[in-house]
């Protein structure tokens, strides 16, 4: 009984954080994009800088009509937002937030992260196919090709860290970095670069947002979604932005390790720094073409990550 209560508490915390994270990030993205484009962004709703803009957005989304398109595959269409939200929630299980704070310290945390996030694609596909709309389907196909291609360098780029630490526990990886006072971003710089580029592609964000390229595909796989169902996609997307950045921080930037401040604060600071860089890149770079995307993934990042794994293994063997 106690265990159940504990699990329920953890779930409530995660879901609350999920909402808060999307609340803050949607506002931050609009504000940052505003300043990058030399305008102000949200100004009028609550607070000094339009700080309650997200509240207004949520109110609007909640009061919208729940509309199911006529030709849609009703089951798939309805389930798709949930299917893409579930992995976004589950990955919080293994993230080491502080020295002793981790919801569930799995001994195969990294594998858990990889296998759970591979389900995002299933949600996207269900949405795109279930909508019975050519733009949605094209968006889903692009998302599929893209996520599939970039998952491989993403996972391979983390292998270098795993070889260096000899553990798949995310907490163990952070502890190894804290022990030697050396973040893996320095010895594993190639891995970090591959990881970050691939993670931007995994998140479907510009310059890799071909799946929802609004100038050609309306909104890609969630063209037919509105109201709270669309909001579920958005919440999942912003949550994934945070968790992927947090994974990068955990693997390469020392996780909760840092001087003076408590661990969870370092963890949040570094994660949101990576998130900020992601937003920065999104509003600075133009979208790549699909063939450039595939070239970058298969001909550059993939060989580079393989070389990184081999190099790390060789170095550790010779040393």
């Amino acid at each position, binding site marked *: 009984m106690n265990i159940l209560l504990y699990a329920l508490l953890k779930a409530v915390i995660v879901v609350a954080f999920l909402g808060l994270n999307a609340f803050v990030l949607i506002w931050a993205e609009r504000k940052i994009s505003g300043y990058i484009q030399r305008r102000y962004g949200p100004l009028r709703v609550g607070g000094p800088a339009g700080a309650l803009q997200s509240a207004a957005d949520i109110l609007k989304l909640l009061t919208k009509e729940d509309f199911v398109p006529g030709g849609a*595959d009703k089951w798939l269409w309805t389930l798709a937002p949930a299917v893409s939200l579930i992995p976004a929630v589950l990955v919080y299980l293994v993230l080491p937030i502080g020295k002793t704070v981790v919801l569930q310290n799995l*001994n*195969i945390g990294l594998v858990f992260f990889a296998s759970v996030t*591979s389900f995002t694609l*299933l949600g996207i596909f269900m949405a795109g*196919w279930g909508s019975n709309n050519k733009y949605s*389907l094209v968006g889903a196909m692009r998302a599929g090709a893209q996520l599939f291609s970039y998952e491989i360098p993403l996972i391979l780029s983390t292998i270098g860290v795993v070889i260096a630490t000899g553990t798949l526990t995310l907490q163990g990886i952070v502890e190894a970095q804290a022990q030697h006072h050396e973040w893996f971003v320095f010895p594993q710089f190639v891995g970090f670069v591959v990881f970050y580029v691939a993670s931007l592609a995994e998140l479907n964000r510009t310059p890799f947002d071909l799946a929802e390229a609004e100038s050609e595909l309306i909104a890609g796989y969630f063209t037919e979604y509105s109201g709270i169902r669309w909001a579920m996609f958005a919440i999942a997307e912003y949550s994934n932005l945070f968790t992927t950045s947090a994974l990068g921080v955990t693997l390469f930037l020392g996780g909760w390790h840092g001087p003076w401040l408590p661990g969870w604060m370092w963890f949040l600071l570094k994660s949101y720094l990576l998130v900020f860089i992601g937003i920065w890149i999104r509003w600075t770079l133009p979208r790549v073409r699909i063939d450039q995307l595939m070239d970058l993934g*298969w001909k550059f990042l993939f060989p580079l990550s393989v070389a990184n794994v081999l190099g790390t293994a060789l170095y550790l063997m010779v040393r």
Partner: protein
Amino acid sequence: MITFFIVAAVAVAAAIGVIAARNAVHSVLWLVVHLCSLAVLYMTLHAEFLGLVQILIYAGAVMILFLFVLSLLSARSAPNAAAWEQPRGQTGLAIAAAAVVAALVLVGAAVGNIAAPTQGAAGGAAAFGTVQTFGQALFGPYLLPFEGTALALLTAIVGAVALSAGHDDAAGRGLPATVAAEPADGAPIDVSHAAPAEPVATGGDR
């Protein structure tokens, strides 16, 4: 034990869904449910790594490829029922085969001595199912089957590329750019020059 029965029921129901669904995409999605419940079964047997890899590879990657192939072949509209092949005794045969398999399993469980594999090769019950024992088993006693599987999969990849490149002599035009870019192993597939065995040999050493 309760977990086992719930998950097993889900697995069986999903398996029935795979063959009962009229829509091929629904079939694949039922298969995803089935594979996930199998993964949960692995985890209840303390093979957590195997369970997660099952989700990563089968439910995550292979099923997505299935979905792609299906939607590229436009499986949206199910063919009308009149055009379907009517089963001619296959149902009976299938039931008989299933009964034989079930009987074999039951007899095997009753007669044979299939103890729960709590003792790993390299460690006690605590180490069972961890990545270390898994890897040691894979690259130790099961090295040959493992490499054999890798070779078979590689052959399948080469075959698929060769098939999609067409049977005609590709020497003049070369392969289509997309196909040439795609061999997953980094082994260049050049139909015009390489002997069929060559890419297999170079890739198999990995």
